[in-house]
């Protein structure tokens, strides 16, 4: 169960959701799309088109070849660093996991209609079926669970049908869980009417996922949820939690540190399944960037400091240096560190 904490305007988290679903289409998995905000048909129409392997691979290959030529020259000043491996900011040719997509183009209808997909649009469901048992939970969530469970058992994802030779995977994508559109007021008030609905839903969803061959990604508007205790519980109930923080409208947009990127990726939790250890990567500072055709997640690296000021404002210092400047401490922008000269 992958939980994505949405960024402020939901732009990038929706993009991640679409990538997840598009990968499912290309791999031939079945899809289940649930939303209360827009009709799942529309979501499917907006999936990015997959790139044919050879063109993208060739572009990457060219880039990598050019880069490696440059670095053949030995370093003259920083010669101590020569022996360290070259840091790859983004995975290039050595990782070929999954497929690549071109977000400027939409996926062709024939492609996504070739897989079996199920949709759940809350407003249609609420109006069509009569009242079902509520289980002490928000009715929108309860219906969604019933719908997912019905699909899982009908289509045999839980191994209940021994006749079925070919086992397939179900990819579930749920948009904006916890938002007011689902009928849950966790995002509106500090003391919501039923604070346990969302967590109960996640627990049952987790049970359904463990029991069947399915993978699920949900996006949660974490920045709107007032009661932080609920977010902590959501984190504990999910296997993997990724937070997206976009720079739109925040002070970081103009910070030269982040000029190449559109936002930060915070990996709050990674799954530790079937083993004592988990696979933690070397670095935890990741940022994302939305190019015209591609959405990339890279290691956050500082751009070279070519400005006139001696020190560089990092994220902690931003507030500190603004305070110092306003109190008239002189012409030089002084950071909080006393070792600056």
């Amino acid at each position, binding site marked *: 169960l992958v939980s994505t904490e949405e960024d402020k305007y939901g732009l990038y988290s929706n993009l991640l959701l679409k990538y997840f679903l598009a990968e499912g289409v290309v791999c031939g998995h079945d899809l289940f799309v649930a939303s209360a905000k827009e009709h799942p048909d529309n979501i499917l129409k907006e999936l990015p088109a997959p790139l044919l392997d050879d063109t993208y691979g060739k572009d990457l290959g060219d880039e990598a070849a050019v880069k490696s030529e440059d670095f053949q020259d030995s370093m003259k000043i920083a010669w101590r660093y020569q022996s360290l491996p070259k840091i790859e900011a983004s995975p290039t040719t050595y990782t070929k996991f999954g497929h690549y997509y071109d977000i400027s183009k939409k996926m062709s209808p024939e492609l996504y209609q070739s897989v079996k997909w199920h949709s759940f649009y809350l407003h249609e469901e609420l109006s069509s079926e009569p009242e079902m048992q509520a*289980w*002490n939970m928000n009715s929108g969530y309860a219906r969604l*669970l*019933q719908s997912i*469970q019905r699909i899982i058992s009908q289509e045999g994802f839980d191994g209940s049908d021994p006749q079925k030779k070919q086992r397939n995977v179900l990819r579930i994508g749920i948009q904006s869980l916890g938002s007011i559109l689902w009928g849950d007021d966790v995002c509106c008030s500090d003391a919501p009417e039923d604070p*346990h609905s969302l*967590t*109960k839903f*996640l*627990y*049952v969803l*987790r*049970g*359904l996922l*463990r*029991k069947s061959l399915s993978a699920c990604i949900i996006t949660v508007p974490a920045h709107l949820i007032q*009661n*932080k*205790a609920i977010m*902590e*519980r959501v984190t*504990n*109930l999910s296997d993997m939690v990724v937070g997206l923080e976009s720079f739109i409208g925040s002070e970081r947009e103009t910070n030269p540190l982040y000029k190449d990127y559109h936002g930060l990726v915070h990996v709050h939790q990674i799954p*530790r*399944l*079937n*083993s*004592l*250890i*988990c696979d*933690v990567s*070397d670095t*935890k500072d990741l940022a994302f960037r939305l190019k015209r055709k591609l959405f990339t997640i890279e290691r956050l690296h500082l751009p070279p400091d070519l400005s006139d000021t001696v020190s560089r404002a990092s994220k902690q210092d931003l507030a500190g240096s603004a305070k110092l400047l306003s109190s008239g401490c002189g012409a030089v922008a002084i950071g909080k560190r006393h070792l600056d000269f």
Partner: protein
Amino acid sequence: QGKFTLLRDTRTDGSFLVHHFLSFYLRAGCKVCFVALLQSFSHYSIVAQKLGVNLAAAKEQGQLVFLEGLKSCLDLLFGEEEQPGQPSPLQFLSRSPRELRALFDFVRVSLTPCARDSWKGPVLLVDDLSVLLSLGAAPVSVLDFIHYCRASVCCQLQGNVVVLVHSNEDSEDEENELVVNSLCHHSDLILWAEGLATGFCKDVHGQIKIIKRLSLRQAAEQDLVQIYQYKIQDRNVTFFARGLSAAVL
């Protein structure tokens, strides 16, 4: 015998302690009732295999009573009507009295020794208690449940109880903090796994504080606190004194 151990984790995942205790007590020949609320049976089974214990066999022989919370919840919500003699242990999810009495009855029945049993002392293992709060149980109900379990398992049956809870330093989850603090006061032994305050490190995964609450049983005694750092590997966990990790030496 008759001890209550609290496993606590902050900023990190303390489930390796649960795996350890599970395999430890099974190897010692105790009868274990494992209330596994967060993960599936196969997850524990695979890790236990790496630690040298076969959970499926233990279950067959009756040494292990495994309550798989996720599966039980699905059976409750999507299954057929329950039989009158076997109430679901997690029925507080869908019924209104938000009490954990059914869960306690399950525990009591599974650990009460019957004539054929030749196992050594009973053990109750819970992973993890904080999930019960997420599922709608009131903090007082959770504390009552633990109290009843202690009374029956520790005092009556002279067994041990091991419980895992999550906590955070600046947590806003007041219900959880209430439960954790209350349990800390009543525990004989607290194993507190914390992530390093300085952030993530590849060679030292965290630090563990072992608090032996001698003050609980005898008025004049002081609690004994020991602190080690640890690194988790595929098949075991290595502990070392603070600052003496293998990477540094």
